[in-house]
């Protein structure tokens, strides 16, 4: 009997330990789910569910004011109409033009970052100064620029006229200049963000590369062209992609400054979508625009994944 217990006891203990382990693992699973569940629930209800709904609604014809029973399924109708819609095509084109702000802003920001990285006193002050527009409210900024751009009495045109320019542009009131005006403001806002990222990128370039180049007698341009530019390329690529994606989200500036006008010259996909859904109340049609927007951003993201491996010289 005693021998038997002696023999069985260890087995029993091992068994118990195994049970404990299983219980512990189950606990760990529950604990894990407990930690992530608020986030998961929130994302599922507020993001995942609406994504599916957007895709579904893009095949429907429905308006906010009619009951759900009036919803009609129309297949790809919304999409075929979309690509014959002059305003939507204009918005797409404006989006494409707006992308130009990204490289321009990157070039200016890189210049500022290199200048204040090693060549100035009061580096902290410059960082804060150039970052100011980025943290300021877009609505307030837009309103300030609206007055600065005032066609007849605004300070910008007063300065231009005092410099002898007879007919300065009407800026946001002129269909030919409105988009450019908004692009100028967008660049002004984004410089701070780009500059901070570039400054961080510059820190990671090893100093001895520049010292070696100095010994070889390289001038500033050669050093920039052969050391800084290639070694900063991962940062540039990151800024380029996030910059492009963010141009597809520009809404506040247009909503406050031009509402897509004059003559749709500043309408972009996001504005067009908002206008269709919340002003004209065409839900299905707006959802089709959302799907196009979604596909464009998805395409850019895929491009980023592939491109990161291919084009970044590291």
């Amino acid at each position, binding site marked *: 009997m005693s021998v038997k217990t002696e023999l069985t006891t260890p087995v029993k203990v091992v068994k118990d330990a195994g049970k404990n382990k299983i219980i512990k693992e189950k606990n760990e699973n529950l604990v894990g789910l407990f930690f992530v569940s608020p*986030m998961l629930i929130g994302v599922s209800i507020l993001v995942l569910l609406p994504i599916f709904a957007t895709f579904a609604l893009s095949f429907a014809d429905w308006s906010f004011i009619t009951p759900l029973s009036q919803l009609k399924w129309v297949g790809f109708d919304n999409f075929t109409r979309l690509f014959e819609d002059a305003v939507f095509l204009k918005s797409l084109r404006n989006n494409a033009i707006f992308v130009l702000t990204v490289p321009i802003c990157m070039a200016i920001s890189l210049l500022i970052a290199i200048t204040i990285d090693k060549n100035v006193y009061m580096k902290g002050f410059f960082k804060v100064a150039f970052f100011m527009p980025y943290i300021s409210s877009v609505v307030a900024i837009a309103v300030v620029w609206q007055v600065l751009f005032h066609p007849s009495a605004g300070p910008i045109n007063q300065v231009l006229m005092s410099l002898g320019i007879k007919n300065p542009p009407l800026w946001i009131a002129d269909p030919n200049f409105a988009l450019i005006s908004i692009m100028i403001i967008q660049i002004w806002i984004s410089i701070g963000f780009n500059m901070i990222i570039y400054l961080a990128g510059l820190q990671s370039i090893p100093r001895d590369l520049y010292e070696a180049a100095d010994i070889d007698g390289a001038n500033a341009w050669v050093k920039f062209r052969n050391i800084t530019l290639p070694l900063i390329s991962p940062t540039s690529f990151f800024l380029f992609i996030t910059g492009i994606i963010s141009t597809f989200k520009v809404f506040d500036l247009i909503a406050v400054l031009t509402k897509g006008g004059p003559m749709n010259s500043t309408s972009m996909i996001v504005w067009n979508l908002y206008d269709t859904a919340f002003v004209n109340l065409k839900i299905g049609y707006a959802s089709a625009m959302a799907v196009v927007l979604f596909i464009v951003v998805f395409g850019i993201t895929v491009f980023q994944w592939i491109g990161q491996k291919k084009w970044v010289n590291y």
Partner: protein
Amino acid sequence: MANSILIKKSIITVVMLVCSVLFLLPFVWMLSTSFKIEADVFKFPIQWIPERSNGFNNYKEVWFGDYPFYVYYWNTIKVTVITTCVSVVVSALAAYGFSKVKFPFGKFLFMIVLATYMVPPQAILVPQFILFRKIGLFDSHFGLILLGSFSVLGTFMLRQFFMSIHNDYIEAAKIDGAGHWRIFWSIALPIVKPAIATYGILRFIWTWNDYQNPLIFLRTDSLLTIQIAMQKFTTINGEFYSLIMAAAVSAILPLVIVFIIGQKQVIEGIALGGVKG
């Protein structure tokens, strides 16, 4: 040699100072105009320091006039502070769960959450709007707070920091009998405090500046946040630019204060994660 470098550096500093002043001129113009009487707003050459000051009346009209800013300030502070707190808690919990607790599909679930980050917020506005109308969250601060509370970006940022905590710490605590909750609260959280401060400040700034969500999800005048109020104020006071500038200064000021206090965290946080609201 050393001297010539010093001189060069000083010259570049002066040039950059001029550039940064030009860069900030719109802010200077805004501030100076907010103290002017209306007749002097467009006087040329520009009066950078107003000769006839009307600052007191301008700001009084903004804060206690027909569109009283103190109401919208209170709304915005409420929404921003609560959103920031909830978002930090939700993100910190999820970040710890995704980095330090092993559970089935953990990696997979994290990838799904991360993937939702690339969805443009405007692409899901319509279903969100319909949903909020149906469940009665439309036109309420609670709904607005919910919309800002589940930040993928915050989770991602904080997860990076949690991952840098060595697993030995956590194993040691487990052997001492501490559960994950205790470990999270008394070991992990104190270590990532700086990251939480950074994310908290960024979330505060983004929520304060949010224009799109309040525009779509709020209707009642008395519930409006400062960004929408600012726009309404501008529409109503159309040609009173001195008043509008006083409103703009009022809308930007709290952020400038938050930014100057948390300057280091904000700039480092942006540089570190390459984050963008």
